[in-house]
């Protein structure tokens, strides 16, 4: 068995996943199994400290010592992980992780704190194309989090609330920093919280569907990954809006571990590279 760690350093959280996979599994790593996973939110703390915390917690959960780990694979802002063995690009890591979570996946929408990206892949997790959102945090995960704070809604309440909306407020292009006053205005105009949230979900979903289209994804299974993958309100919006669009036949899904897609993908790639390195050394 090969034990590898994947560390995904994002802008708002560090995700760590430990994966155990049988020897000789090649790229695909059949029989791979998640043995530990841990998320630590950064919240203005020193990123290096947060990485140590998260990695330590995952070691403890897996009940292993640092030396037991064959390969530490990073993705995202991986250069901050000074104990890494190697680094993998976000796109390839995500593609691999998504395919591991749901083998039918042919495209990924990764919704992070600041960026959203659409990745088109084939059945062997080869990246065929991708698109990213622009240089503005409007409609990002951070944006939604800010709004929720102003509305006094906790993060896990966002999705369920959004789903009860009956007349979504049209919201797009609101600055994430100035949103506070906009939200106060909306509330004082008597707009219900759930309608504001659903409005934001719709604007985000529209953006991601556009990204998918420009990455030439028009059918197949699309997996939502990243920090907002657990937001059922966003998922519902993506499904509803996609169903209404002509010449669009995508099947939007998510997975309970979808926030770990990057970390899992890195860990799986790490196992493959570990074997290759061993072979090369033996030869």
């Amino acid at each position: 068995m090969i034990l590898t760690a994947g560390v995904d350093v994002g802008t708002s959280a560090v995700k760590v996943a430990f994966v155990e996979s049988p020897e000789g599994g090649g790229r695909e790593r059949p029989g791979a199994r998640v043995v530990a996973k841990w998320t630590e939110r950064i919240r203005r703390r020193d990123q290096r400290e947060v990485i140590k915390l998260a990695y330590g917690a995952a070691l403890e959960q897996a009940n292993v010592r640092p030396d037991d780990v064959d390969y530490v694979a990073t993705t995202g802002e991986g250069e901050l992980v000074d104990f890494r063995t190697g680094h993998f690009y976000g796109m390839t890591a995500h593609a691999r992780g998504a395919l591991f979570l749901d083998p039918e996946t042919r495209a990924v929408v990764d919704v992070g704190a600041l960026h959203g990206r659409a990745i088109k892949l084939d059945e062997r997790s080869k990246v065929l194309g991708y698109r990213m959102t622009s240089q503005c945090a409007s409609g990002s995960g951070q944006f939604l989090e800010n709004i929720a704070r102003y509305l006094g809604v906790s993060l896990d309440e966002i999705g369920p609330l959004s789903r009860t909306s009956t007349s979504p407020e049209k919201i797009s292009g609101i600055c994430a920093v100035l949103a506070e006053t906009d939200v106060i205005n909306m509330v004082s105009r008597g707009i219900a919280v759930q309608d504001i949230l659903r409005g934001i979900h719709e604007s985000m979903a529209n953006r991601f569907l556009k990204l998918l289209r420009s990455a030439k994804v028009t059918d197949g299974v699309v997996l939502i990954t990243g920090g907002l993958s657990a937001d059922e309100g966003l998922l519902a919006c993506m499904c509803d809006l996609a169903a209404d669009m002509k010449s669009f036949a995508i099947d939007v899904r998510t997975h309970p571990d979808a926030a770990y897609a990057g970390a899992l993908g890195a860990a799986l790639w790490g196992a493959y590279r570990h074997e290759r390195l061993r072979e090369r050394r033996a030869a």
Partner: protein
Amino acid sequence: MNVALGIDLGSTTTKAVMLDEDERVLGRGITNSRSNYDLAAQIARDEAFVGARFELLRRELNDDAFCKRLEARFRRRQHLSQLARLRETAMRETESERVARIATPLRERLERIFDDMETDAHRRLVAPKGSDFFRDLANSAFSAAATRYADRDVTFEDLMSVFDKAIIQVENTRLDLTFESNIRAALADCGGDDAQARAVDRVVATELNVIGTIGTGYGRQRLPFPKDSIRSEILCHGLGAHHMFPRTATVLDIGGQDTKAIQVDKNGIVTSFQMNDRCAAGCGRYLGYIADEMSMGVHELGPMAMQSTRRVKITSTCTVFAGAELRDRLTMGQRREDILAGLHRAIILRAMALLARSGGIDEEFTFTGGVANNEAAVSALRELVRENYGERTINISPSSIYTGALGAALFALRDARNRRAAA
């Protein structure tokens, strides 16, 4: 005497300016904006009345030193009565079910905190750091005292949550802080003589007859004013800047939520303008956000940026992205001073683009808004103006935060004159 009022309800602060019939500023008032817009406007207006009566007293007495001393005593009276209200409200909060478990030790600690705050009131008012709004002064004094008295029975959080609840209530009630009801006590405090007392009486007796009020600013639509008493903030800003610096041709205003580039003619009437489009990059909130990210006061940013020796080029536009970039750069070991210098340049670069679209920078150029008080922003602006337009006179007034309210007051005065002429 006849006076006109302008009220500028901004996203962060609400300002009022009172003018006499000769277009001279009689009084100014400022308060932090709050969810109750009407009250914010009323308080700023009340403060402008206080300022006006002090101005009248200065004109009566011609004794600046005494007036200064008297005003200091007056401010202290005001502060103490707000503090008394805060104490009362905080004590009432201890009766809540929420804190029943610790009510007795909580009350005992609050008494000590408020005693300390009253003793320190003088020192606090002499050298206010950053903001001098009651909310901010009380907050820093309370939390400093709370750190001293917090322990395992009553935690810092317990104490602060009482404060948070009490301050909102105090802030949303209108206290009697007028000149009339506090001045005699203040006069007694500093031992005024009979002549001074008579002058105070004359000032109190002077009737300030408001012949017009105009509202402007971000929240202007919500002011309880008739429609014809609301004017756009662009018009007010242009006219206000022209009144302060009559040769003004171009105005740049960097406020809390928006940035405006305005061109005015020789009468102060706006000929063209550009505004940033609901984006925090390039306005005051950008610096506020960065200050929060660095756990610093927004007033500390400018001086620190001035210490820079090697400015960093900031590549992000969006405020949130710039905040992330700031964290990255700090982790990479770059100096705070150099990053901050880069951030100040970034905000001014955005303003330069806006100015260019509005028609460039003509002679003279007036810079207004809260960011005009930030030396690092001003220095970046000077540099970029010289690079792009050559030498220009750059006007900055210490009371530039009142520019919009001043313009509104001028409009109010003109409207009143027109009404009178028509009658």
